[in-house]
């Protein structure tokens, strides 16, 4: 089989993995080496679906002894199979890297013969890249559940990020759709990586991925699982992947479109947990277990806790600023450093580069609301927030109808 055919098959099989970040590592290469990794990460292109391309994302092989229901490469599917040799992986990586197409390699794999055998092949490829080609760029490898600790150690010493996918948010979901995999095996990997992480071992930390919408979990169950994993395994990221039907199976839901809005809400909530000091209980509870599709989780929180608002920009604490819809970490820091030097008014905020589209409903500047204070009411704010979100949509509809006439 020609190299380009292999590349098509093995990139096509890898594309459903959402992770493509290249951040968190500061690696350099030796005297004869090529490449480095920078902690802020670099996107090299964006695919037709708008997702970042940072790494050469491929499977080593799409052959697999497992039969996970949702997976294109399950044993029972009749698809073309291919396997890269270590030399081929190195050749493509180095040639792409020299031309600045990529930041490094993302290597995952179907399982051939056994987890250990598969990991050994992956280690051979990655080790060749590091030691023969002296490659100092970013490498993210997927650990194969069930492989032995010895191999986790070897692979982790070579890569920047080592991760294992939990695949589905709950153990029951996993049993149903991926009967060959077990949650324990994934937890063991995460535990091992967490306990051994250092500047030499998996310096960029670990991440994981869950498929959203293939099984019946609520958003509360999903986000609770994430919170647990962030707490227990010090994960850098949890990726959420809207379920896309590639197989027909009685156990799988029939969806017309992947649940992309839901996926987006989960990412927004995830950021709130990691950077904005929110707890899951601030966002969802048993009576209210799913995110509002119309309004983002932070605005939804603000509307449900309107008694905490409006916040006075010149007085409230950093964490209170972060609770304001439309104010992110950069804006909050900017406000904190500015107000030590002058009293911030509405017109200053604009000049400071702070977007008021959402924030204006939830703040006062030097005691003043952006319009008459009597409009600080839930129904008014809610209607306007929903409208603001729909303005681009409405505008593009107007343009369409103009063209039609």
């Amino acid at each position: 089989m020609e190299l380009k055919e292999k590349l098509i098959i093995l990139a096509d099989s890898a594309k459903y993995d959402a992770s493509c970040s290249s951040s968190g590592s500061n690696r350099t290469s030796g005297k004869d080496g090529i490449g480095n990794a920078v902690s802020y990460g670099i996107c090299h292109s964006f695919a037709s679906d708008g997702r970042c391309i940072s790494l050469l994302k491929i499977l080593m092989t799409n052959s697999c002894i497992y039969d996970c229901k949702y997976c294109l490469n399950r044993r029972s599917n009749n698809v073309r199979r291919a396997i890269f040799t270590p030399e081929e992986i190195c050749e493509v990586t180095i040639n792409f890297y020299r031309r600045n197409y990529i930041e490094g390699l993302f290597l995952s794999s179907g399982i051939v013969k056994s987890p250990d055998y598969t990991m050994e092949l992956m280690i051979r490829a990655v080790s060749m890249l590091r030691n023969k080609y002296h490659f100092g760029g970013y490498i993210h490898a997927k650990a194969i559940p069930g492989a032995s600790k010895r191999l986790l150690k070897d692979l982790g010493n070579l890569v920047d990020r080592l991760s294992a996918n939990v695949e589905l948010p709950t153990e029951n979901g996993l049993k149903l759709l991926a009967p060959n995999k077990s949650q324990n095996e994934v937890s063991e990997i995460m535990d091992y990586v967490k306990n051994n992480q250092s500047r030499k071992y998996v310096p960029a930390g670990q991440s994981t991925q869950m498929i959203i919408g293939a099984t019946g979990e609520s958003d509360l169950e999903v986000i609770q699982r994430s919170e647990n994993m962030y707490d227990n395994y010090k994960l850098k990221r949890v990726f959420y992947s809207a379920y896309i039907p590639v197989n027909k199976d009685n156990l799988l839901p029939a969806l017309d479109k992947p649940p992309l809005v839901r996926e987006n809400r989960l990412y927004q909530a995830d950021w709130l947990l990691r950077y904005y000091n929110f707890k899951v209980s601030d966002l969802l509870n048993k009576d209210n277990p799913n995110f509002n599709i119309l309004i983002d989780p932070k605005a939804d929180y603000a509307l449900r806790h309107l008694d905490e608002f409006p916040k006075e920009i010149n007085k409230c604490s950093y964490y209170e600023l972060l609770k304001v819809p439309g104010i992110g970490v950069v804006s909050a820091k900017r406000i904190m450093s500015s107000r030590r030097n002058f009293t911030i008014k509405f017109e200053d905020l604009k000049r400071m580069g702070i977007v008021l589209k959402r924030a204006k409903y939830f703040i006062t500047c030097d005691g003043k609301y952006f319009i008459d204070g009597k409009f600080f009411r839930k129904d008014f704010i809610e209607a306007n927030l929903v409208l603001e979100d729909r303005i681009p949509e409405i505008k593009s509809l107007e343009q369409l109808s103009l063209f039609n006439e």
Partner: protein
Amino acid sequence: MSKVYIYDGDFLSLLKLIYYLVNNGIKPDDIKDDMYFPSLLEEVINLSFDNQDEVIKIFVNSFSKDIFKTLYYVFLSGDGRKELIIYYFCLNAFKYGKSIIYRRNLKCVSEVLRISEYVNHENHKFKGFLRFRELENKVLYAEIEPVNNILYFLTIHFMKRLKNEYFIIKDVGRGILSIYDKNKFVIVREDEFLIATDSSSEEEEKIEELWKLFYNTIGISARKNDRCRMNFMPKRYWKHMLEVRDLL
């Protein structure tokens, strides 16, 4: 007649001029480099200064290294009013000292920060979007058309990354090239250094095809989203990116 003050075109002579203007309480109508072609209604004033290296020290001590670097980023921008913006910033900076950088309610400060962030951002984008091609003699060659003059910072990035390669990056719009020889780099004007760039190495076509195949495979068609792609990767970059230039 409006008064336009002329400097030599480099950052230090701009700072020397600004220092002179501030010290003597002169408010210029504009400041331009020596390539400037004045209109009939403008009076051009060309001052010459002795070698006053201590000016750098005065700036660094009065503000901070970070602010100094921020001003250099503004200087590299493609903004036509950049000299005047830097002048007004310095005028206020001599008054407020280091805290000037937090006074975003002043227009000169918000402009300086906005422009320097833009230059920094564009530099970051090109770290990813730049594409090298391998010439017949194995030299890597790339063409870029940035709005701002980021060639210096961009070359430093690639010098660390591809230290054992020969490479050339050409800023097409400005007609300048940076040339790296596995040891150090120089920036020259295109008429000072002629190279044939139409040849390709034996492998080049094969690798480019592989990249295009990979690019076209990795997008998920059920998630197709042109607007999102364009937000992250605006079309002005596409001309020099081989995976999307044919879509233009």
